[in-house]
Every structure is written in C-alpha cells, then in structure tokens.
C-alpha cells in the first residue's frame, strides 16, 4: 500500500497516518479508546508516535464519558476511538449524553472495508445510521483523499455553535489506502453550517431596557455560559455586579457564578432551592442565559412563571420558544451577548436605582430563611447530606473537580457542594446516565494530573462502569470514588415511595459487593466508614492517598432528597423537608401526576 517511490511526498500518506496527523493539527493530546479489528491500522500509527497519549479504557462507554469529562473540565474537544460493530454501538450512550449536555466530542469509529459494507460482515453495523440521531453530524469516509478534510470539519462542528458530538466512520481499507493530506482550512468550506455568534444589537438593547424597568428580576443561567468559555463566566459575574439581580442556575451551569456570591440563590428546578424556584415563579423579568427551559426546570408548564416577561439568550435557534414562549429571543454566543449586555447596561441613560428591587430582595430573604436544604442530622448514622457537607468542607480549599453519577447523590452533591469556578462540576444532566461519573473523573484526571478529582457516586450507579478502575490503575490516575451507599437505588426508591405505595420493586441492591475488597482486587485502596464521628478523619485519609480510592460511605438508607417539585406541580408548590411527613409524601402527587416521570 505504499507508493512505488521510496520517498513519498510530504502530503502523501496512508489513511491511518492522516488520522494521526489531523488529530495533531487539531491540538489533540489525549485520546480515549479501545482497539479492535477495524481500527488496527490507526492503532499501529498510535504505537509509532508519542505526541498523542492513548488512554486504554475497559469498555467503549468509558472512553466516551472519559472524553466528556476531559472536554467539560478543559473546554477542549474530547476525542474517542473505537472499533466497528460493538465498539460503535457501545459508544451510543456517551454520544447521546454529549448531545443532550452539549459536550464537544469527536468519535472515530472503525468500519469494515468498503467492499464488505452491507454484507453483514463480522463486526459490521450501520454506524452512521445508528448514530445519526445521537450526533450533531456524522460521516462515513469513502475516499481517503477526503479523510483529512472531514476530520478538520468534524472538529469545527463539534466545538462551534452549540457544541456536540460527531462521528467519523472510517472503513479499514481507507485506513490502509494512500492519499493526500489536506491541512486545516482557514475558512471552512462548508457554507451550510455557519453558526451565528453575534447577537442582534436591537434585541439586546430591548432586553437591557426591559431589565432596567424590572422590579422583580431574576437571572436564570445554564450550561451555555460554561460552554462559551471562562470569559462568559467573568462577564456574567460583571453583569450580576452591575445590575444587582438575583441569580440562579441549572444543574449544568453550576460554577459560572460563584456559590459564595451575594446574589446567588442556589440551583433551581425539581430539587432546587425554595428561594430560586419561588423567585422564578414570582419574577416580573426573567433573563435566561444559555439554558433551555428543560422540564426538570419548569415544572408544570402552564403555571411556569406566569407574570414575567422573558429574555432568552441561546446559540441554538431550536431552543428558543421550544417549551416556553419568550418575549425577547437573542440568538448568539453567550459570551458575545453578555459583552454587549454589560456594555449597554453601563450606557443606560438612567441608572436603575437600588430601591426598585429592594422589596424583591426582602421577599427573597424571607424565602431563604426557609432553609430548604436543611435536614435532620444524626449522631448514629451518617446522613448523606452531612457526608457531602463534610466532603465539601475538607476539599474546598484544594484544586478540586467533582463528577457524579445519577440519582439522589447527584442532587445532594448539587445542593451541598459549592462551586466557585466553571468547569469544576461534571455531571450527566440531560440524559441522566448512571455510570457517567467514574469514567468522566478519569478523563478529568488525565487533563489535570495534579488535581483532586472526586466522583460522588451511589452504590448502584458506580457498578455500571466499575471496570474503569483498571484504567485508573494502569495510568496512575488517583481518582477518588465517594460512594453514598444506602443499599438502594435511592432515587428510584424515593419515587416508588411517592408514586407507588412504597412497593420497592427491584430498587434494593441485594448481593452488594464488598467495595473495599473490590478496590483491593483492582490494586486500588478501599475505605469504609459508617460512623459520623470518624467521617472527617477518613475523608482526610482518602485525600492523602496517592492512588485511586473507593470510599464506601454507609449512609442512612431511607433518606429522601428534598426539596422537591412533585410531578405535575408548579414552582410554588414545592415539597419542603420540614413539611415532608410520611403522609405528605404519600399524597404529594395526584393521579394525574402519577402518570408522569
């Protein structure tokens, strides 16, 4: 498969070489993957170079989530490499996860040779067909001369506009074939994809004018602020400082505004704070920045913030007016629009006076006084909330990154761990993928080798991708898994209590592994704690270990996650912890709400 000349021109090379060269040109330093028959030529090239480090995972799903964690903690594109057939199908969950949470991800898949496509060959599947609905775009490469251009375009599409996952499916004969390498073009050739980043100034001015008249304003921000880059977070802080508006955020947006900030109301939504949800319900002007009015946020749509005028800043036109009608849509990149907003607010002829929002702040103070995240602590058992409070206290002054799995522990982590900076919090929001947190933590640790990376996990979720412990050991990634072990799928159990007469169908984890021995079996460190008095010492011990740790933290089995907006209810119908008697919990959701999720 080489040219007859001994000396190949610089830009002539095999498809596999093109892949590596294109990855390097796009700034890739780490690659998460798993080899197989249809990607062997690319693996052979990986072997013969050392600019790009390949991290060998133990399951392709782990490669995807690790690449997601890498991307979310750095702002760079995450890259994964898998083989054809099962390699590609195992990548589907992280692809959909990245699509829903807008994570830039490039997934390279091997494919059977072009001559065998359609013949039901060994390890063949219709990768572009399967991944079409779970990617932003995908390609099947049929000509080696197009390979470099497609990879460059893949990186452009993954990270521009609303970021998302892309798949490049490369048949094995294309990897072997010799073709021409084309460098990354200065200006993209594809004219049908040109995302708009500058917001319409007239719309921004209208938004600023509306904000200046607000008596009960609120800023509702989301993952878009973080995706836009650190400058967007800085500008958001400046806007809050200038306007004095209260601010809440979705699960995905935590850290864009510091939790220690005076105007912070905490997270909103189903398990968000009372003050954030009440303020959303009663506001007169809502400014949504980089969030998408998800159903976990809005509660009952026809009772959602009934008396407000709404501004929505989003880079994705399909997010605007999708679930909630907005009065002033602004299409553009959050960072760019925030810059205009800050400038136009400064230029307002008549400054808004503090007195205008004073009553509103007094009301917010009353809501805050309800202390909606409060819980009854115990001297005998570790309350899950207490465990996370202690974990936060003992790690907050370090260079810490937190990932989570999905369930009660995820919501408690969002409630009790405060984030001061963006890109420090990695969680599966849209898709709600159990098994996300541990491989994501591995990706974060690869990007930040000296940081303290903790996966807050549940005893059920952690078992979904536990095999990646082997990866953590192989690459000396001292990730800490902090399991809030209540022996239940806690969130499932909580919903069964709320909705199904407390019939706990299949939500109890029987045959639980011994997590300490499990850690030791992999060569990691296992720890156990069931005594609140020993917790601090054990957490400090965990932090000091320079190896991966599984921390089996035994917590109260039947604790529920409150506050909560039950299904079919509005923001001002929250169930608060001090009101959540057994009877209230049993009757919280009526027959109609029971049919919902």
């Amino acid at each position, binding site marked *: 498969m080489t040219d007859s000349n001994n000396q190949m021109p610089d830009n002539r090379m095999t498809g596999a070489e093109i892949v590596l060269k294109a990855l390097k040109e796009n700034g890739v330093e780490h690659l998460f993957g798993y080899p197989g028959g249809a990607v062997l030529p690319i693996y052979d090239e990986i072997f013969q170079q050392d600019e790009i480090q390949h991290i060998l995972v133990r399951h392709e799903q782990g490669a995807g989530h690790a690449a997601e964690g890498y991307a979310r903690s750095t702002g760079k594109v995450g890259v994964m490499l898998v083989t054809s057939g099962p390699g590609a199908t195992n990548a589907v969950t992280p692809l959909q996860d990245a699509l829903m949470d807008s994570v830039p991800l490039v997934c390279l898949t091997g494919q059977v040779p072009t001559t065998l496509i359609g013949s039901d060959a060994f390890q063949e599947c219709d990768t*572009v*067909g399967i991944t*079409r*609905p779970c990617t*932003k*775009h995908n390609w*099947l490469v049929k000509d080696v001369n197009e390979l470099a251009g497609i990879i460059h375009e893949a990186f452009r*599409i993954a990270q521009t506009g609303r970021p998302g996952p892309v798949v490049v499916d490369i048949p094995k004969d294309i990897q072997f074939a010799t073709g021409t390498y084309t460098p990354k073009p200065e200006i993209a050739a*594809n*004219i*049908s*994809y040109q995302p708009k980043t500058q917001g319409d100034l007239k719309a921004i001015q209208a938004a600023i004018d509306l904000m200046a008249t607000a008596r009960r304003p609120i800023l509702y921000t989301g993952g878009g602020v973080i995706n836009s880059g650190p400058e967007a977070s800085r500008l958001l802080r400046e806007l809050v400082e200038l306007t004095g508006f209260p601010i809440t955020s979705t699960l995905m947006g935590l850290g864009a505004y510091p939790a220690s900030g005076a105007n912070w109301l905490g997270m909103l939504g189903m398990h968000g704070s009372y003050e954030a949800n009440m303020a959303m319900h009663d506001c007169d002007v809502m400014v949504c920045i980089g969030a998408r009015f998800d*159903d976990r946020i*809005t*509660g*009952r*749509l*026809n009772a959602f913030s009934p008396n407000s005028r709404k501004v929505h800043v989003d880079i*994705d*036109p*399909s997010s*605007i*007016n*999708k*679930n909630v*009608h907005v009065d002033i849509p602004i299409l553009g990149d959050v960072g760019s629009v925030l810059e205009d907003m800050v400038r136009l607010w400064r230029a307002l002829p008549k400054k808004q006076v503090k007195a205008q929002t004073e009553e509103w702040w007094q009301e917010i103070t009353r809501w805050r006084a309800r202390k909606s995240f409060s819980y009854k602590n115990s001297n005998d058992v570790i309350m899950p909330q207490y465990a996370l409070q202690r974990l936060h206290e003992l790690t907050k002054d370090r260079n810490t990154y937190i990932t989570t799995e999905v369930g009660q522990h995820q919501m408690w982590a969002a409630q009790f761990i405060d984030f001061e900076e963006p890109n420090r919090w990695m969680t599966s929001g849209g898709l709600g993928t159990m098994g996300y947190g541990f491989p994501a933590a591995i990706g974060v640790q690869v990007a930040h080798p000296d940081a303290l990376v903790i996966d807050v996990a549940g005893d059920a979720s952690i078992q979904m991708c536990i095999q990646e412990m082997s990866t953590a050991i192989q690459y000396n990634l001292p990730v800490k898994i902090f399991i809030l072990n209540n022996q239940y799928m806690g969130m499932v159990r909580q919903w069964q209590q709320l909705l199904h007469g407390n019939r706990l169908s299949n939500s109890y984890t029987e045959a639980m592994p011994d997590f300490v021995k499990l850690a030791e079996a992999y060569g990691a460190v296992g720890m156990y704690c069931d005594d609140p008095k020993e917790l601090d010492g054990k957490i400090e011990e965990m932090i000091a270990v320079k190896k991966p740790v599984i921390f089996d933290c035994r917590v109260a089995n039947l604790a529920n996650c409150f506050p909560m907006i039950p*299904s*079919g209810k509005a923001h001002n119908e929250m169930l608060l912890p001090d009101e959540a008697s057994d009877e209230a919990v049993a009757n919280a959701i009526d027959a*109609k*709400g029971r049919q*919902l*999720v």
Partner: protein
Amino acid sequence: MNAHQQPTGSAYFIAPETAKAESHTLSILVNNEPGVLARVIGLFSGRGYNIESLTVSETEHEAHLSRITIVTRGTPTVLEQIKAQLERIVPVHRVVDLTVRARELGQERPIEREVALVKVVGRGEHRAEALRLADAFHAKVVDATVEHFILEITGKSSKIDQFVAVMKPLGLVEVCRTGIAAMNRGQQGM
C-alpha cells in the same frame, strides 16, 4: 399527530394544545450527499412530526444541491420548531415555509402541483367513459393497449384526488403519485 398532542417530549404535565393545527408546505435546500434525506425524515419521526407529502430531487447538479418539499401538519409553535430543527441539520442550507411566505405576499397558498400516473383497465363503454373523463381533466394517455390506459395527470392534489375517485368505478388498477412540488408566486426565489 403526535407532535401537537405531546409537544417536544417533555416528561412533565403539559397543558393540552389549544392552538389549531394547520398544513404547511416547506421547501428545504440541502447538499446532495448520502444520508441527507435520512437526516431530514429521521428528524420528523424522531420528534413525532407528521409528513403528509414528501418529494426530493437534485435541482442544481453543479452545486450538488437537492430540494426537498415536505407538507407537514402542526400548530404554529410546532411548525416554527420544525423549521428551527431542520435548520440545525448540518447539510441543510435553507428552509422556507412556503405557506407563511405566501401569506406574507398576500396570497392564499403557494403554487403546489403533483403528477400522477393512473392505470385503468376496461373494455366497451367503461373504456370510452374513462377516456372522455381523462380529456376533461386534461390527462394524457402515455401508454395503451386495447384493454388498458396509463394516464398522466398534473395538478393540485385535490384535482388528482377527484380524478382518482372518478376512475375507480371505471377499472382503476393502480395509482402512482409524486407528492407535491411547490414554489411561491412572484419573481423572487427561495
């Protein structure tokens, strides 16, 4: 129909849609590349939108552009969402709601035409009647033996519906319709 019964797949309680569903014709200019049609129709099935009619063909060979015409049904909000979702597809260049455009131009509807081939088998009086009616509808005979005709008819969908209905008792064997091709009146392009 799914689209307006459960908008956007929200898992929460959603008020029943009160706005009225209407039929709109969309013109979509796309790169003529493998899989582009699958992306468009996958969007419709995946998000529960309707397709009442679909036509697609390459229209600009040099530029590798194809034009897809879709007739869909939904409330104004859903139709706006369909357009935004279509525009998000990477190889989609432009999406024009021809029905909305026609209204902006002060017209009732865009020009919408369909071609149908209709096979009719029969002898004697039925055969003569079929031919008379074909003439009245300006349908052309494109193939014939002593026992059958294939008739080609062009027009609005309602005209074709009617033609098919009158041919039924006269020995109608099969019908093939192209779906709607559409364009706005006036000198401006899409």
